[in-house]
């Protein structure tokens, strides 16, 4: 059963676009990366799934239930870490976390302390005295303390130092091992590459591509670098070659198609060095945005 099932979901804020005709599925136990630049509609999608906003058309199901009609029921098993965290300024961290826990009708005390200790969060400080990174930690503990089955992480690492980021990723992996499904929105590709099994790329409110992270890298462009004396870019004038650049006697280009065609061309010349690599997600990603 799909944990998230989004069908032709569209959201307009008045006349301005939120997302248009977005469809995708996320299976149980997956870590799904949702990538796109700022303003592409990542947060809009998450906010629709949490029914913080209502769809203009289309539908979305979480745990097989419609998000508009079954919101409260669905949210019982959801943890949400927003991209920017805001909490009641006058409250103490511990009181906020207890308030948060009180909604789930179960004892979360042990988990609360466990998580705070792990994230090195001081419980007796006032929210208003916390730095941005520390508020983010409150968000993480708050999102996880009721042991949700589905986690929405909206650009979760912003404001965390590298050490904390690593701890956070370990935590998410551990949760995932216990069977928790994760929906991970980000514009930082490195972290998506590290964590996710499948990615959806969103651009200007529309899904540009959904695929396995491996397939995305394999069925894509190869990055070819050839170093040789007196190299002529016209040598590699083949169908499937793009983005040809010459730099210090090295020729860089992207190639998509039968790699033998390129190999034949290379073997015909005297080369000093050749590398053929898979592109990073970043480069694939940039391609979708050109």
């Amino acid at each position, binding site marked *: 059963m799909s944990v998230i099932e989004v069908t032709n979901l569209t959201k307009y804020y008045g006349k301005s676009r939120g997302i248009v005709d977005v469809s995708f599925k996320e299976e149980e136990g997956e870590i799904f990366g949702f990538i796109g630049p700022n303003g592409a509609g990542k947060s809009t999608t998450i906010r629709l799934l949490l029914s913080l906003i209502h769809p203009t058309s289309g539908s979305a199901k979480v745990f097989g239930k419609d998000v508009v009609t079954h919101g409260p029921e669905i*949210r019982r098993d959801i943890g949400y870490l927003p991209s920017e965290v805001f909490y009641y300024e006058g409250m103490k961290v511990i009181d906020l976390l207890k308030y948060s826990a009180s909604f789930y009708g179960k004892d979360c005390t042990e988990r609360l302390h466990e998580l705070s200790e792990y994230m090195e969060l001081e419980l007796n400080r006032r929210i208003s005295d916390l730095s941005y990174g520390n508020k983010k930690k409150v968000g993480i503990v708050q999102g996880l303390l009721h042991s949700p089955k589905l986690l929405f992480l909206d650009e979760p690492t912003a404001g965390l130092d590298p050490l904390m980021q690593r701890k956070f990723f370990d935590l998410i992996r551990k949760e995932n091992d216990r069977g928790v499904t994760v929906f991970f929105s980000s514009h930082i590709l490195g972290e998506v590459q590290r964590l996710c099994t499948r990615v959806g790329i969103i651009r200007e409110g529309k899904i540009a591509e959904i695929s396995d992270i491996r397939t995305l890298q394999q069925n894509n462009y190869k990055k070819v670098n050839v170093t040789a004396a007196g190299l002529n870019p016209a040598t590699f004038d083949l169908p499937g070659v793009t983005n040809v650049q010459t730099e210090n006697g090295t020729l860089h280009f992207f190639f998509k198609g039968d790699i033998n065609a390129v190999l034949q061309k290379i073997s015909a010349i005297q080369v000093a060095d050749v590398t053929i690599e898979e592109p990073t997600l970043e480069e694939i990603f940039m391609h979708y945005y050109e």
Partner: protein
Amino acid sequence: MNANIYRHEFRFRLKSVIIWSLALTFLIVFFFSMFPVFADQAALMNEFLARYPQELRAAFGMDNMDLSTVLGFYSFIFMFVQLCLAIQASNYGFGLVSIEESELTADFLLSKPVSRAQVLTSKLLAALTSLTITNLVVWVSSFAAILLFREGREYDMPTLLLLMLSIVIFQLFFLSVGLVISLLVKRVRSVTPYALGLGFGMYVLSAFSGVFGEVALELVTPFKHLDAPYIVKHVAYNTPLVLLNVAVTIIALAVSYWLYTRRDIPAVS
């Protein structure tokens, strides 16, 4: 209704409730302590007042009140009490859901497993509890002030009770109208100007309606719906106007629920 939200909301407003209650107690006791002087020199006082133009007296609702009687004097103070209660209730009404949105804590609350209707009901009940505490403080300080300073002058208890019972209707009007306006406008950035606007605005309308004797304005403002001099004079409410007041309150509440359950919570921008 969700007990956690209720408790949280109530605590959030506790300080404000205490301040309003103290202010109102001070207002009632301080003003009423002047009653003996007014009562002793009633003739002089009325002569003094008669020198003011009729319009000015009407604006302050003093054209049909006798400041030499306990209830006449009390109804004069009661208008200022009403003004304070109006501002307080509007303040709670305007802030009820808009503070969460402007301080961006709405995301936290609404991503919890509670329905919008539950959130709104819990918040409304918490605000109503806060207003009721203030209401009770007004009751107690009014009775205390009258007992302390009436100096043996008689007053009609049922009339006083009518005045006191009108407070809750009055508060509910401003609470619900404030709430519905806050949901109709796109974003309330700061609550206080709105609350002062609604409270004072209604008061000024009522004062103008006194000056011009215009009927249309009476229909709008709760200060006329629950006009203290009228209640004292007739020992009864102006029933059609009170019904109108209650109807507006109920409609405002119904529309608020309708709007809030369909509302898109604004994100950080």
